[in-house]
């Protein structure tokens, strides 16, 4: 009834192939953008930004990045934590070496550097597949963490081996460091998420994305129809690492402010982002957001309900949280192996026919 194509006429090809061809969908998208850009910044406080919005937005970028590699190109990667560390350390080195250049440029450059590193570690994907590739990227994870711990140049020879973000401003407003206003940190991340999602969406439905999907579905067949596996796989690694690098840079500079590579960018981070992609839905930009929201928001929500509202002991709540999140993940994967994105698609399909299914 609300959600239908009837009466929604298109007169050009570009209208027909837009991201949200259904009018209701499109308006919903505009409303979400409007709320995110024009309403949320005015009402959020420190807690909402640091506990909910920043992690959600930044993990969403990482999940989009990994989704391009795993979901669209079919190359399993366990090196996400390591690549995020590259982004963070690149951003730190750039921030401290060229303090007069805008942080936005540093974050983008950090993404570029990570893309280069990603391509390097993507080279084995030309010879090995599946689990074996996963193990090769696992090596990247451990190597990169070891490197940033081992070589003092990366952390500017600080005694503790930590990197901490100095204050940097955008248009005179601090976005890193302790003086950052909640809305400033939120907006800078939102802009990056918005840009990354649009770029990813348009890459994946264009020529590049089709090549990646061809490789994913059957690489020999793809090669026969003229897809160059070298270019397709390495470009997937580059684009994916670019996004992951941006998320790492923001994670360090805007969200945490001080980072220790072994703890923050360890193997658990790689798994967390991979779970986001799997739960959200492989090969879906919306799925990346849904997965990030699920794994970031659910623990915070559970904690607030169990400890805040019901007054349970914190350790009991923390253990229960693991069990509930774990059980939900299993449940989801059994009930809907294609993730939250597929649930969303099914819901939309049902809505289109509602209230007269047949």
């Amino acid at each position, binding site marked *: 009834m609300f959600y239908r194509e009837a009466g929604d006429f298109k007169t050009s090809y570009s209208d027909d192939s837009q991201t949200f061809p259904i009018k209701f969908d499109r308006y919903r998208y505009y409303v979400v953008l409007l709320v995110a850009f024009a309403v949320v910044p005015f009402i959020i406080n*420190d*807690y909402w930004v*640091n*506990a909910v919005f920043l*992690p959600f937005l930044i993990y969403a970028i990482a999940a989009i990045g990994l989704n391009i590699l795993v979901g669209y190109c079919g190359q399993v990667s366990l090196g996400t934590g390591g690549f995020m560390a590259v982004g963070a350390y690149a951003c730190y080195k750039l921030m401290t070496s060229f303090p007069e250049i805008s942080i936005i440029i540093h974050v983008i450059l950090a993404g570029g550097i990570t893309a280069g590193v990603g391509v390097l570690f993507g080279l084995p994907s030309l010879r090995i597949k599946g689990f074996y590739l996963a193990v090769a990227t696992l090596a990247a994870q451990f190597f990169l963490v070891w490197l940033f*711990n081992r070589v003092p140049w990366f952390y500017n020879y600080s*005694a*503790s*081996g*930590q990197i*901490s973000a*100095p*204050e940097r401003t955008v248009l005179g407003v601090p976005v890193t*460091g*302790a*003086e950052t206003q909640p809305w400033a940190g939120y907006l800078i991340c939102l802009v990056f998420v918005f840009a990354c999602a649009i770029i990813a969406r348009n890459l994946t439905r264009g020529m590049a994305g089709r090549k990646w999907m061809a490789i994913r579905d059957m690489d020999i067949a793809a090669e026969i129809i003229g897809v160059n596996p070298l270019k397709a796989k390495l470009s997937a690694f580059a684009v994916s690492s670019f996004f992951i690098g941006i998320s790492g840079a923001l994670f360090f500079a805007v*969200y*945490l*402010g*001080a980072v*220790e590579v*072994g*703890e*923050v960018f*360890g193997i658990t981070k790689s798994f967390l982002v991979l779970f986001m992609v799997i739960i959200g839905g492989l090969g879906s930009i919306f799925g990346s957001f849904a997965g990030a929201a699920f794994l970031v928001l659910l623990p*915070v929500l559970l*904690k*607030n309900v169990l*400890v805040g509202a019901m*007054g*349970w*002991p*914190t*350790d*009991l*709540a*923390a*253990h229960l949280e*693991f069990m509930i999140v774990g059980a939900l993940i299993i449940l989801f994967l059994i009930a809907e192996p294609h993730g939250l994105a597929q649930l969303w698609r099914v819901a939309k399909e049902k809505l289109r026919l509602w209230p007269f299914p047949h």
Partner: protein
Amino acid sequence: MKYKLATAALAAVVAAGPAMADLAFSVLSYRTGPYASNGIPLADGQVDYYTLINERDGGINGQKIKVVECETGYNTEKGVECYESTKGEGVLVYNPYSTGMAYQLIPKVTADGIPLHTLGYGRTSAKNGKVFRNVFNYPANYWDGASHAISHILDVNGGDISGKKVALVYHNSAYGKEPIRTLEELAKKHGYELSLLPVDHPGQEQKSQWLQIRREKPDYVLMWGWGVMNQVAIQEAANIRFPMENFIGIWWSGSENDVKPAGDAANGYKALALHNLGSDYPLYDDLQKYVVDAGKASGAGDGVGSVLYNRGLYTAMLSVEAAKTAMEIHGTSEITPAMMRDGMEALVMNEEKMTALGLPNFGPEFEVSCENHGGNGYGAVSQWDAAAGEFKLVTEYVQSDQEVVQPLIDEDSAAFAAENGIESGC
């Protein structure tokens, strides 16, 4: 668990009462994860002391204490979430019990004007109160600890350790890396050879490090470990039959939980101490009466008197004393975090005060001042007696080598001030 639920229910009832003017103290605990074995007694010690003050004295000068506990799992991301979610409740002081988290919180607490107390951990150069206005690390810090360990080795060797080999087994994080600079400076002064053996989080895998120790045969091994890493290291040392009396841990690597898994083989293991051990103090009788026997103990109540329980209790005691000092200075019992900061800066701990509290000779005497937020750097060495099942102090409290430590603190805090554009105060 029943006790816990009962306490929680009680806490909820108490909190639901006229809670407006309660003094909020945070307990950022980690009762889960690979560091839980150490985190549980620490958190219990703090919570029990606050409960005792509420039950026995009716609070601090009539103001009830509200304990705001938040589970961090020793994870900095959760720690940030905890800090942001609890600071709105007017928490007077934060004790994160994690060096990584302390680094994260230093800029935040400075911006928010809330004091941070890192007792024997955190950023060492925070001792310089001129730069770190809101951060306190009394009564001693890591660099003091490094100096204590080396002076103990000097004592044992009659004052000459040139040519000796000392290995440092450390948690590969900000925490474990802290003492390296000091140990290097001390190596220049005393002429020993230092080798570094990092262990990655969480520290369950240490075979290669101990293989290296077996090969290089250092005369002494120092350890900066935490959580499960401690237990594994002591077990590995026992496996290669490293002489335990030459194995010295920092005060975070010297609790019963760390040595018990290795059984008798751990006998003779040494660890530094910031405060006294055991439960042979008048205060513990009150604790038994008002908290444990009354069924209000946090946790199972079996940790009372253990090293880390005492540390938690000591932290809570220092916070309560600072709050009392703040009340005196400002003449009000409804203090704010800013007043609490003034109280911490004017805190005086002497024998008289500790005796009055029922903790005679429990910790070193010190006075906090605007310039010195770190106390005087006194520490002792304790040794594990496996047969008796307890740590015993084997030395007096000695001061660290201020000639070496102080210049390093000045240098590091000056660098921090320059990096962040802080003008030094006082």
